């Protein structure tokens, strides 16, 4: 039933994109497309959510006579798929709502409208696919449509380059997954997931599968060092698409990894966990450091996606390690943390991209160095963005904190792990997680402060206008979700239980009916958290304090020029910029991560030329990994290209040579 509904929603979406090709010009089309996408998203969301809540254990399958002729397209909706369907369709619902407003002032609707619904359909199908071919087909279809959306504003040079790199990396990832399934399916092509589940591959084989799956899914999720395309491509797209790509598509990649490694590939070995943990930790820290160095708002958010993907993979790695040692409860905790973070990140990352989109729409600027003071011009957007920033910085009482708290709890369980390597890696991963959380807070103080607080640095920021009602509605729905998931996490954790049940046949104890909705992952004596109580207490204390003071002490208020240690009020230029805000952290961390190098030139006294500050940074990952590949390809191309200008006699010589060679082979063959 639910499966049918979702599939029909997908069909509607595909039909819509076909229609959109026909009439891409009029603004009516925009309204129509986003309206339909909104409705479809809502339906699918309802269906999947209901499935997850009502009949979590069950699994529905369907088969269509398309795709591989003798195989057909298999679709399957189980708890895992349902969870990710919820994530996807929540994103598509809100971004369609946002698009209703944002899409109106789209410069080239003809390049967005046809692909937007197709992109949504693609993501839904990936999650539903139940055979290797359908999975890869929809997976690559998803990449292709998102590529088209990235190329929507193709006139900027950077976007074209971003799209190019994106499509190359996407195809690379697909190739890796192709090989993965080639291994899993075996020579006579048992591509159906059921057939793959039935067979348990050998140790070496499964190791190869894990590596390939990490490359394939990781390159789409943006795992370091496969992340290079992500901060280029995500910001290039229209903002509601950026929200989808960053908030949702990366989650589809996570789904792919979980499906392959936890479901299709037999029991794990302990070192898998070590590998995944390490990658996750590195991604978490590097991602946030990259983000700190950015002053392009949307690119900063994209880099934070890398960070959060790292956090999710830390959870997954822990789950693998525990599972390998058959510590099922601990594995369930780690997996729950990871999946919960999947949901949370999709929510607040979409929210933040919506906010960035609102700013972009109002000012036409993505560069924080040109913004500032927007909280006065766009108060509601500011509130929403602030909520999102708090959530992503893992600060209570918002949802980001809960999932990271669960991850910490899982890390604290790991001393029971027998393997020495894990004993060393896990605490290190914990430190990296803590570091990335703290840095993220700093990064979002920078982002929010430079964009919304202080004084406007350019006239565009001076006279920006508050964004439209549709966008605000979309944003505040997400704000609400962030808060609810933060203060009532018990319900969400229980909703995740069937997934862990499915993948590890273990689950956390039911949380929702505990006293005062406290969440207790393991034991009350060990650790517990109650977002609701904290929220109420803080609110009460704050309000009480304010009330008492205003009531019995003074409530008089006077506006005056800023004091600023008695300096006369200087121009907004004297404010701290995003770059100067990040400077201390750059000094501390940038040295090894980016080869950051600062040069300050202060003219000697008496001379009146301006002082100069130069900052040079290098992306080591690019230098070490990608530049060499580029070099090799170019070298080979140049060398081989000389063949093009040979003489006919030379070509004849090649023919003659191959004839003689072949004859020799034949002569020797006996």
């Amino acid at each position: 039933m639910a499966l049918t509904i979702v599939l029909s929603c997908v069909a509607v979406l595909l039909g819509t994109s076909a229609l959109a090709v026909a009439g891409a010009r009029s603004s009516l089309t925009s309204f129509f497309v986003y309206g339909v996408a909104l409705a479809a998203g809502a339906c699918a969301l309802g269906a999947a959510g209901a499935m997850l809540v009502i009949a979590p254990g069950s699994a529905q399958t369907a088969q269509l006579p398309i795709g591989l002729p003798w195989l057909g397209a298999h679709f399957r909706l189980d708890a895992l798929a349902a969870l990710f369907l919820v994530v996807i369709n929540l994103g598509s619902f809100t971004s369609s709502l946002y698009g209703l407003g944002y899409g109106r002032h789209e410069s080239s609707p003809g390049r967005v409208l046809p692909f937007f619904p197709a992109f949504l359909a693609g993501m839904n199908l990936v999650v539903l696919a139940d055979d290797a071919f359908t999975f890869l087909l929809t997976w690559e279809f998803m990449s292709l449509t998102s590529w088209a959306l990235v190329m929507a504003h193709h006139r900027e040079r950077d976007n074209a380059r971003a799209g190019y790199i994106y499509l190359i990396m996407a195809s690379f990832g697909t190739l890796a997954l192709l090989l993965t399934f080639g291994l899993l399916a075996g020579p006579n092509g048992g591509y159906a997931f059921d057939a793959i589940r039935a067979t348990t591959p050998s140790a070496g084989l499964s190791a190869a599968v894990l590596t390939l799956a990490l490359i394939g899914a990781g390159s789409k999720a943006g795992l370091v060092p496969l992340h290079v395309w992500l901060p280029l491509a995500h910001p290039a797209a229209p903002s509601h698409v950026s929200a989808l790509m960053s908030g949702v598509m990366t989650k589809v990649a996570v789904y792919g990894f979980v499906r392959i490694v936890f479901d299709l590939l037999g029991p794990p070995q302990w070192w898998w966990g070590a590998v995944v943990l390490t990658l996750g930790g590195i991604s978490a820290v590097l991602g946030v450091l990259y983000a700190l160095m950015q002053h392009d708002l949307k690119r900063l958010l994209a880099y934070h996606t890398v960070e959060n993907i790292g956090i999710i993979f830390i959870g997954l790695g822990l789950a693998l390690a525990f599972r390998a040692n058959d510590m099922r409860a601990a594995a369930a905790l780690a997996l729950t943390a990871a999946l919960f973070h999947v949901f949370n990140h999709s929510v607040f990352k979409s929210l933040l991209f919506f906010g960035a989109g609102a700013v972009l729409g109002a000012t036409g600027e993505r560069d924080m160095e040109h913004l500032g003071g927007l909280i006065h011009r766009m108060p509601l957007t500011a509130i929403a963005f602030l909520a999102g920033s708090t959530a992503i910085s893992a600060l209570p009482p918002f949802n980001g904190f809960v999932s990271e708290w669960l991850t910490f709890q899982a890390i604290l369980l790991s001393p029971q792990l027998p393997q020495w390597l894990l004993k060393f890696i896990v605490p290190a991963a914990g430190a990296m997680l803590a570091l990335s959380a703290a840095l993220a807070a700093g990064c979002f103080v920078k982002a929010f402060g430079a964009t919304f607080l202080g004084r406007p640095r350019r006239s565009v920021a001076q006279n920006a206008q508050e964004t439209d009602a549709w966008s605000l509605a979309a944003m505040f729905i997400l704000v609400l979700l962030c808060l609810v998931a933060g203060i009532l996490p018990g319900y969400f954790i229980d909703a995740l239980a069937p997934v862990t049940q499915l993948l590890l046949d273990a689950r956390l104890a039911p949380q929702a009916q505990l006293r005062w909705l406290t969440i207790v992952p393991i034991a009350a004596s060990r650790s517990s958290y109650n977002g609701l109580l904290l929220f109420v207490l803080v609110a009460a204390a704050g309000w009480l304090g304010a009330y008492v003071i205003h009531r019995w002490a003074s409530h008089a208020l006077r506006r005056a020029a800023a004091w600023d240690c008695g300096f006369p009020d200087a121009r907004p230029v004297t404010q701290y910029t995003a770059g100067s805000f990040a400077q201390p952290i750059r000094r501390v961390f940038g040295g090894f991560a980016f080869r950051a190098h600062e040069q300050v030139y202060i003219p000697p006294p008496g001379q009146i030329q301006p002082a100069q500050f130069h900052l040079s940074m290098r992306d080591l990952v690019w230098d070490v990994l990608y530049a060499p590949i580029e070099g090799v390809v170019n070298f080979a191309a140049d060398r081989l290209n000389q063949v093009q200008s040979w003489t006919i006699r030379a070509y004849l010589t090649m023919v003659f040579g191959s004839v003689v060679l072949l004859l020799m082979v034949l002569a020797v063959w006996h």
Partner: protein
Amino acid sequence: MDRLALDVAHLFAGGLVLVSFMLLYQDRMFGLLNIFALHALVVSLSVAWQAHIQSAPHLYITAGIALVVKAIIIPVALRRIIVRLGIHRTIDTVGGIGQTMLAGIGLVALSIMVMLPITAEAGTLTREDLAFSLSVILLGLLMMISRRNAVSQIIGFMSIENGLILAATAAKGMPLVVEISVAFSIVIALIVIGIFLFRIRENFDTMDVHALERFRGGQP
């Protein structure tokens, strides 16, 4: 009788290989033409002999074509082209004649080696004959790539074709031989015409195409 027939066939085939070597050895243009005429003559003789022993009259046509076209018309045409286009009378080779000859011997050895495992019951055309024709073909290829000038390259190609005709006719009862040889003659004719049209003096590559416009009274 049959024994003798085969020996004569062998004689012709071996002779053809010999003439191919002479082609490789020759480095004067007109001498090359004469030797090629001889090459064609040998082929036509062997074809005629096959026609006789196989009592397959249609092969006489092939022999005739070989004789008329390749032993007479084409050498004459080429001679006139050489004169008309003022092509050098001496042929410059890639590497010396000596190496080329050595390579040629190597090729013959190779073709014999390749043919060895073939069981003799392949019919009246024994493996030797196959080996001969194969070596003629390879020698022709070798000539095409070891000569720097168009005429000798064509001659190389035509010697390849002679080798093929030899094999084809010697393969007893092979259908369509005539058609095939006709088709081949067309190709060769076209190549020769091409040489003439495109003023290809030294090499297949260096064609003086601007002359072409004049020749055709060309459009822009």
